Structure formats: structure tokens, C-alpha cells
């Protein structure tokens, strides 16, 4: 019994050790953001600042283009989410409820596109958007993000719709509900959690996206906030790490909050099929 106890303590200690190592970078980011410049630049690190300051945060938000780029990110994210949800919902219904020619080809295409590394598509998308004068515009970025948000959203929503028994919808129609009524009153509320989860996931990926924003946007006033952060250090010799960490924290906060809300669903969605298959 004591041996088992000792083993339990050993495992728990190991678990705590892993926790410390994994979380350390996040802790270090937040901790640095609140330090004074002297503490940041010192050769001996200060683990916790006993004299925290929010000066780095106020400096970061007053940097040129911070608010303009936050606004750009918000526009891109919101428009992408709204369009993606509307289209993906309809496509998911078609895919889950109706058999049509080319259904299998469609599934292959959808999963295939999802599997392509984004890097592989920068060239054709850039040329295509240049042809329609959509380079260096937010609308061009939105169209690009849709090509990635749609397959994932359709696939995830399809899983939610399949879970709804057909009888429910039929019962509503037998009771005198129209097709639209059955859709609004039965299908929509049941799929709502799926819609929430998928939109948040789309929100996060669009907010975080880097490479397409990098090649499509080349005007500081039109950049997204992720790009803004990537250029933070610039080429100056004196690197302002306190400011960089404060800016990093600010960019990460919205993502972390939303991510915590849906993490379970997404983790499930990505592999649920795999486990069941």
C-alpha cells in the first residue's frame, strides 16, 4: 500500500513538472509584459515583478496602426464567419440529408482541400486575386479565408446534422408545420451549438492566420493584427521585449477566451469520425 502511494506521488510530481515546462512560455510572456524595463533588460531574470507596471500595454496600444489593424482583423473575422456559416450550413444539410450525383466527389474534394498545406496555395490564390485586383484589399483576404473555413465548417456541421433523427423533422411536418417552419423550429435550435462551435473555430483561425495576410497585404494601414505583431520588433537595434510581450498578450487574449469556450467540441469534431470509423 505504501509502495503504491509512493508511486502515485511520483506520477503526480512528474505531472506537475510537465505542467510547469509546458505552461512556462505563456507564464513568461505575461510576467514579462508587466515588468519594468530594468527588470526586463537585467541579466538575472525576475520571475514575478513585485512592482508591476502596465506601461508596456499602454505603449503597445498607442503604437502606429494598432487600432487600424485591430479593426481590420475584426472586419475580416466577422465577415468570414458570417458568410462561412450561411454557406456551410446549407451545404451541410445537402450533404447530410440528400443523395446526389457527385456527392462522393464533393466529399473527396472537401477533405482534400482541407488537407493541402496552405503554403501550397499561396501562388495560385495570389495570381487569381491579382487578376481581379483583390490584392491588398480586405475582401481578397476574406475570400481566401473562406476557402479554408468552408470545408472545415461543412464537415463539422454535417456531423451535427446527421445526429438529428429524421423523425423529429417529419413529426413536426405531420403536425402541420411547413418545411421552413420545421427547419426553423426543429433543425436550427438543434444545430445551434454546432454553429457556435464552428464560428468560433473560424474566428480563431482567421484571427491567427499569417501567411496569406503576409503575401496579400502590403500596406500597414490594411494589415491584420497578427501581421502588426510580427513586425513589432522591426529592425531597430534596441529590442523592446517588454513591449513585444505586452503586444503578444493583447493579440492572444481574444483567441484564448474563445478557444476555452469551444475546445471540447473542436477536439471531438476533428477526430470523432476517426474514432467511430
Amino acid at each position, binding site marked *: 500500500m505504501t509502495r503504491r502511494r509512493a508511486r502515485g506521488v511520483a506520477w503526480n510530481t*512528474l505531472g506537475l513538472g510537465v505542467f510547469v515546462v509546458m505552461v512556462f512560455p505563456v507564464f513568461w510572456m505575461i510576467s514579462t509584459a508587466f515588468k519594468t524595463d530594468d527588470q526586463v533588460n537585467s541579466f538575472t531574470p525576475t520571475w514575478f515583478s513585485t512592482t508591476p507596471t502596465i506601461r508596456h500595454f499602454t505603449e503597445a496600444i498607442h503604437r502606429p496602426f494598432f487600432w487600424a489593424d485591430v479593426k481590420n482583423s475584426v472586419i475580416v473575422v466577422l465577415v468570414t464567419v458570417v458568410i462561412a456559416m450561411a454557406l456551410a450550413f446549407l451545404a451541410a444539410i445537402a450533404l447530410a440529408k440528400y443523395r446526389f450525383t457527385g456527392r462522393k466527389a464533393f466529399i473527396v474534394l472537401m477533405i482534400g482541400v482541407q488537407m493541402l498545406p496552405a503554403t*501550397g496555395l499561396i501562388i495560385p490564390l495570389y495570381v487569381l486575386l491579382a487578376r481581379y485586383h483583390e490584392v491588398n484589399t480586405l475582401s481578397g483576404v476574406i475570400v481566401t479565408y473562406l476557402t479554408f473555413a468552408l470545408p472545415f465548417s461543412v464537415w463539422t456541421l454535417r456531423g451535427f446534422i446527421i445526429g438529428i433523427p429524421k423523425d423529429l423533422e417529419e413529426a413536426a411536418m405531420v403536425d402541420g408545420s411547413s418545411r421552413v417552419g420545421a427547419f426553423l423550429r426543429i433543425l436550427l435550435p438543434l444545430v445551434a451549438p454546432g454553429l457556435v462551435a464552428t464560428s468560433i473555430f473560424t474566428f480563431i483561425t482567421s484571427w491567427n492566420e*499569417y501567411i496569406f495576410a503576409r503575401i496579400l497585404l502590403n500596406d500597414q494601414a490594411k494589415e491584420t493584427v497578427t501581421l502588426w505583431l510580427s513586425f513589432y520588433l522591426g529592425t531597430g537595434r534596441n529590442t523592446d521585449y517588454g513591449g513585444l510581450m505586452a503586444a503578444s498578450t493583447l493579440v492572444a487574449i481574444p483567441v484564448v477566451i474563445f478557444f476555452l469556450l469551444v475546445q471540447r467540441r473542436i477536439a471531438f469534431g476533428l477526430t470523432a469520425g476517426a474514432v467511430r470509423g
Partner: protein
Amino acid sequence: MVAVLGAILGYPIYDLVRLSLQRYGLFELIQHHGVYVGLHNFGSVLHDAVFWHTLLRTIVFTAANVGLTMVIGTLLALLLVRISTWVRILLTAGLVLVWAMPQVVAVQVWTWMTNSENGVVNYILTELHFGNYFEHNWYVSPFSQLALVTTLVVWGALPFVAITIYAALSQVPHDLVEAAEIDGARPWRVFLDVTLPVIRPVLLILTSLSILWDFGVFTQPYLLIGQGHIVPANYLMGIYLFEQGYVKADFGRGAAISILMLAIVAALSVVYVRKMVRIGDVE
């Protein structure tokens, strides 16, 4: 509806193939059409020594990253099963927090932690007596740079892998494990004969996904090594494509590189796609 979606998703790929057969530079970009040159772009890429070196480097990089991610991820999942509830909740919360970190943010944190003047990594390694890392420069050689990128990529990928495997572990029948243990089977044998067969499908999917992600990785190496320090000696496939196609504005050649890259990735991920298609078909 479906046709429209198919067109939206399929058109870039059609465009990619057409582009790869054309001479398409800045001039053609303004003119909006390229000049047909047959397989010239492919020939030029396949005769480029940098392409082959980059390919080899990327394969080694991918193997190292996927290997580390899967092995450590599995160990973490097994650890999650063994620890008491409160440690598990704490560790899971920590993993989810790491998972939520945007890549660009993580890169900036790495830059700060590993800077040669007063990076905390050098400090900790020195304090723990791993050697004298005072003012050690991690960005001095391609190997060291890519090793640093590996730590960043693996750190970011671990939460998803560990939590997914942990979920799969809950499907391992308890009595079977106990029976094996009573029969005197060693932990390693229990894992191989009882646990592994149950979680194999999940491991397969995760490995395929990791290969796809790591083979095409761009953001982490590009930003961590730093735009100004990207040279052919530390190219990975994604960066080679970016430099040759986009930066040099040789879009036809870039398209050829993309197709070669996509073909390699497609070959690597056939397992995953087939499995997912089967699921989509059955239901």
C-alpha cells in the same frame, strides 16, 4: 449550391496546374495572362540543387517533428491516466492554454526566451548546470535554428495530440488491462498488446495530420529564424516555395513547386483521406 462550392474550392487547383505550365512573372501578372512553356518550370525546379537539398532537409525535419510529437504526446496521454484528478485537471488546463496560443505570438515568446543577451533559456540551462550557456547564440547555424523551430512546433502540437490520445485511451477496456496485469504482463507488453490496438486508428490519423502540418510549415521557421536570416542553407519546403515563387515573382515556377509539394503531401496523406471519405460515405 454544391456546384458553386465545388467551383470555389476546385478552381484554385485548376488554376495552379495551368499556371505551372506558363511563364508567369510580374509582366504577365499585369497583363493577366502567361505564356505557355510546357514542362519548362518543372524541369527547372527538378534541376535545382537547392530543391533537392530543401526536400531532404524538410523530410528529416518532418520526421523529427512528427516523431517527437507523437512519442511525447503518447507519453503525456499515458501520464494523464495515471495522475490524480486534481493534477489531471491542472495539466489539461495548461495544455489547452498552450493549444490556444496563436503561432505568431508563440514565435515572439520564443524570440524573447532564446535571445542571446539575456534570454531566460540560457539562464536556466546554465543554472541547472547543463553547461555554460551565457550569451549562447541559438541562431548561429541552420541545425541550431531548425532545432529551435522544432521545439516551437512540437510544443504547439503536443496539446492537441496528447488530449486526443487521452480521449482514445478511455476506450481501452479496463478489465482487459487488469487481467493482463494479474497474469504478470509487464507494463510495456500491456501497452503493446492491449492499449495499442485500441488507439491505433487515432494514432494513424494524428500522424497523418502531423505530417501534413509539419511538411508545409511556414510561419514558425520564417518568423523565428527571421526574414533577414533566411538563406538556402536553412530553407524548408514552404519557405523555398515562398522565396522562389512569391519573392522572386516567378509565379509559374512557384506553381510548379507547389504541385510537386502537394503531390508529396498527397502521397503521404492517402491513408487519412481514404479513411475520412469512407466515414462520409457510410453515414
